[in-house]
């Protein structure tokens, strides 16, 4: 287990370094960032001054190492637009996004796992078809459009929920549904497939043959084994939700990190964008690392093979 964990940790670190190089490199995609920042009326002296002030005149490797060294100390640079530290900005907004992501993944699991189990217990039944319908619809529904339709229905036609803002729990209901519904199909399909496989195994037949009640067989024998891959999928989906939160938060004006991403991107605020890409990626890498460890702990075949 220790060897496996160390190997995984090393891989996660290398991935993190690569991601940091890419997010650093993004700044230079537009050509010379000093010209972009200076704007149209900037003279050659202004641009040179910007270059020296932000340190763009140094070699790229030096700039990268400097950026990483600062990032490790919690300094992601200063936002051009908000005139504040990127680190403070991101971590001020992150709790809203994490709350949203967590409630969305819980919503998705609460919807997908029971449906997946029911579909697997009775394949090709009405409930299996319904589950399939929900999953096919979920993949085809554009999240921004679903969000707007919910606003029309639940804030305009029947004024039950507030359309935008992030002050109370009621503001989180619609974003949770939109973001959570997006993750439902994958989790449901995996639960169904896992349960179908487990239900045909010998130990389930034994459990049934010795007269255990069906709910006990399902919960104690089948679900425990079928749910292992769902754990790691949920972690991956949570990571994807951070990206999806950009769209959802900007529709509902939920002031989280996703909304910050949209604000900073549309204002060419590169240090903030860089910081957000780095933080989102690091969260994803940490989550997959942890879920790998949990899986290896649950299933010895993974850590040995």
């Amino acid at each position, binding site marked *: 287990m220790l060897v496996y964990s160390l190997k995984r940790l090393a*891989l996660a670190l*290398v*991935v*993190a370094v*690569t*991601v940091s190089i*890419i*997010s650093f490199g*993004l700044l230079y*995609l*537009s050509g010379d960032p000093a010209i972009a920042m200076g704007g149209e009326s900037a003279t050659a002296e202004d641009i040179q001054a910007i270059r020296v002030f932000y340190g763009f005149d140094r070699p790229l490797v030096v700039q990268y190492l400097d950026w990483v060294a600062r990032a490790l100390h919690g300094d992601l640079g200063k936002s051009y637009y908000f005139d504040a530290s990127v680190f403070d900005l991101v971590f001020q907004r992150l709790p809203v996004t994490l709350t949203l992501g967590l409630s969305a993944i819980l919503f998705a699991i609460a919807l997908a796992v029971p449906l997946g189990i029911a579909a697997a217990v009775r394949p090709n039944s009405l409930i299996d078809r319904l589950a399939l319908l929900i999953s*096919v*619809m979920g*993949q*085809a*529904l*554009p*999240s*921004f*459009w679903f969000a*707007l*339709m919910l*606003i*029309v229905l639940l804030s*305009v036609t029947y004024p039950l929920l507030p359309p935008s803002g992030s002050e109370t729990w009621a503001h989180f209901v619609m974003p949770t549904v939109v973001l959570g519904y997006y993750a439902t199909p994958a989790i449901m399909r995996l639960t*169904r*497939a896992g349960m*179908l*496989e487990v239900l045909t195994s010998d130990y389930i037949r034994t459990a049934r043959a010795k007269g255990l009640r069906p709910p006990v067989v399902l919960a104690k024998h089948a679900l425990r084994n079928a749910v292992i891959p769902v754990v790691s999928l949920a972690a*991956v989906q949570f*990571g*994807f939700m*951070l*990206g*999806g939160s*950009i*769209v959802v938060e*900007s529709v509902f004006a939920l002031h989280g990190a996703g909304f910050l*991403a*949209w604000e900073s*991107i*549309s204002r*060419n605020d*590169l240090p903030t*964008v860089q910081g*957000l*890409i780095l933080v*989102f*990626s690091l969260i*994803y*890498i940490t989550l*997959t690392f942890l879920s790998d460890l949990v899986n290896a702990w649950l299933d010895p075949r993974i850590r040995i093979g």
Partner: protein
Amino acid sequence: MTDLTAKADDIIALTPGQILRRRILGHQGVMIGATALVLILLVALFAPFLTPHDPYLQDLGARMIPPVWDARGGWDHVLGTDHLGRDYLARLMYGARISLIIGIGTAVISGLIGTCLGVAAGFFGGRVDMAVTFLITVRLSMPVVLVALAVVALVGGSLEIVILVLGLLLWDRFAVVMRSSTMQIRHMDYVAAAQAVGCSIGRIVFTEIMPNVVNNLIIVATLEMAHAIILEAALSFLGLGVQPPLPSWGLMVSEGKEMLFFDPYLITIPGAALFVLVLSINLLGDGIRDVTAPENRN
């Protein structure tokens, strides 16, 4: 008696092609998806002949005319007009072109990248496989929407840029699927036989491996096409994808957003079109998997 012989003939005479054809015709998902997709394709191709209106022509005297089912609407503008007086049906039809171009273009670019990486990893194994797996892990760690938005904002939004950016980002599933299917084929006896005869690597890949994995490639390509169409719509909705005045469906929803409370048709119509297109592509992709490899259905 004749009945029985007819049935016996039936059983014997079925070729693999006939079995496949029966499966396709008997599969609701494939039929519905293919029909809807062909219809949308035809509308996109023949848009200039199907509507008399120009999708870019502004007519400020005819702003915000509601669709024909509204009492204030008329048959002249079947789906009404937008805030600049452009005919909504014409924009919807020309918008289908944009979505289809994005979907196909992205699937081609990401398919090329992903297939090369995946087949190389599966065929050579060892260090090549490690390198490709590492690239896939890095790619999955970067949030697609965030990176795509940032790149488009830096480089400038246009149809070509969006296709290129999405193509460079969405190759992961191709690589994953191609890698595992190539690995399965790699150890078949006929590959070993081809190697023993002295076939070059290129020949083995193209004549022994590709024909056996192309089925999975098509399935992933349809699903990624749908994925790209949804992402383009989301980018355009956020204002950092295809730029106005192009009639991208995502952009149309975004432009109609201001009128959400008074004229919801501006949002419902392009959104529903997007939903139908993506749904039919997904139904087709899932259906192809069921039909060609029924054993993988679950």
